[in-house]
């Protein structure tokens, strides 16, 4: 089968397009799947995390993936961050050092993730100058995203991340995706609440709500992340199942996507 991919921006339309790709290829096994990227004239680099997660799951179901007709400008971005190295292309040097490489982690890789963040984010000279206190909180917020995926998703296929710096705009786009059960199912199974997907995301980000059960408490990670991003006038987007949720400058919006995808989280930050 061939699927055509449009421009991918890290906004609702971009998520919708990638989630549609996931839904349309669901159930394929031992198939050849061609993704025609001729229409993709824009690709926000951090969205490689979601794109890569979808393709990885397809590969896990023994499908052969071919990325076709990639525009040179897009190929350059996706080669610099190492994404296309997974699909037969060579990595090219990142002259300006603004990419945060595409990477897949297993759930046991907390420390490996921590050193990736230290190496690719915290210790980079391209990183905007921050006070020690802000840098510490920034780093801990990123770790909270990963911990949240580890603690809640029950993913067996891993956790995917990718990012992009915009030094002049003092902005970082960073995405983390897991291939777990999703927030809606988690809330239903563990909190006994049968909510619509977008309402389930909202529930998980509020107060002391948590889906954690058992001897280790939870219910703080997403709130800490949200507080930090709100405080720094950043933006956080969460897509899980068919739910879309965004918090930007203290305002929250949410809605339903046309198709469903398992859990993923996105944080865009400004300094």
């Amino acid at each position, binding site marked *: 089968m061939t699927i055509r991919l449009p421009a991918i921006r890290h906004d609702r339309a971009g998520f919708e397009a990638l989630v549609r790709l996931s839904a349309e290829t669901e159930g394929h096994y031992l198939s050849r799947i061609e993704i025609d990227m001729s229409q993709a004239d824009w690709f926000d680099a951090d969205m490689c995390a979601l794109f890569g997660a979808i393709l990885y799951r397809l590969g896990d179901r023994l499908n052969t993936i071919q990325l076709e007709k990639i525009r040179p400008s897009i190929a350059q971005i996706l080669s610099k961050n190492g994404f296309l190295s997974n699909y037969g292309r060579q990595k090219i040097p990142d002259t300006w050092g603004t990419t945060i490489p595409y990477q897949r982690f297993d759930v*046991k890789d*907390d*420390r490996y*993730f*921590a*050193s990736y963040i*230290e190496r690719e984010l915290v210790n980079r000279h391209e990183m905007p100058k921050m006070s020690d*206190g802000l840098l*510490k*909180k920034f*780093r*801990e917020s990123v*770790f*909270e995203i*990963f*911990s*949240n995926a*580890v*603690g809640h998703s029950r993913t067996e296929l891993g956790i995917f991340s990718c990012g992009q710096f915009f030094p002049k705009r003092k902005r970082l786009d960073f995405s983390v995706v897991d291939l777990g059960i999703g927030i809606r199912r988690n809330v239903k199974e563990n909190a006994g609440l049968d909510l619509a997907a977008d309402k389930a995301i909202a529930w998980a980000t509020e107060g*002391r709500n*948590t889906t*954690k*059960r*058992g*001897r*280790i*408490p*939870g*219910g*703080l*990670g997403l709130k*800490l992340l949200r507080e930090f991003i709100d405080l720094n006038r950043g933006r956080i987007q969460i897509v899980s199942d068919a739910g879309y949720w965004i918090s930007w400058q203290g305002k929250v919006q949410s809605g339903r996507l046309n198709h469903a995808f398992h859990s993923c989280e996105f944080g865009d930050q400004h300094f």
Partner: protein
Amino acid sequence: MNDSLDLSIYEIVGSPLCVASEDGQKVYERIAAALREGRAVSVSFRNVTSLTSAFLNAAIGQLYGPFSEDEIRAKLRVQDMEPDDRALLKRVVDTAKEYFRDPQRFDQAVEEVLGDEAR
């Protein structure tokens, strides 16, 4: 505190980045074992540069399941923490107390502990 057990988080984790729940679990096991023996415990966060709620939930928050608040207050001392880390710990502890007030969660936690001991 006489005969207290002194623990260095940095030494147990082996890194200044205390981010993983599994690392928190290692800390918890040492604290819990000492508390079960009736010993006081002093925990130092010296040289720790990053903490997450997942780590602290596992290391400290979890204590509020099998041990009472009074017991923890009397026997556990936390030292060498930056003020912002102390603020995070307070939130973790407040959340944990509330978490274990929910009888369903508490029952499940007790079941898990007993299950472990039966193995």
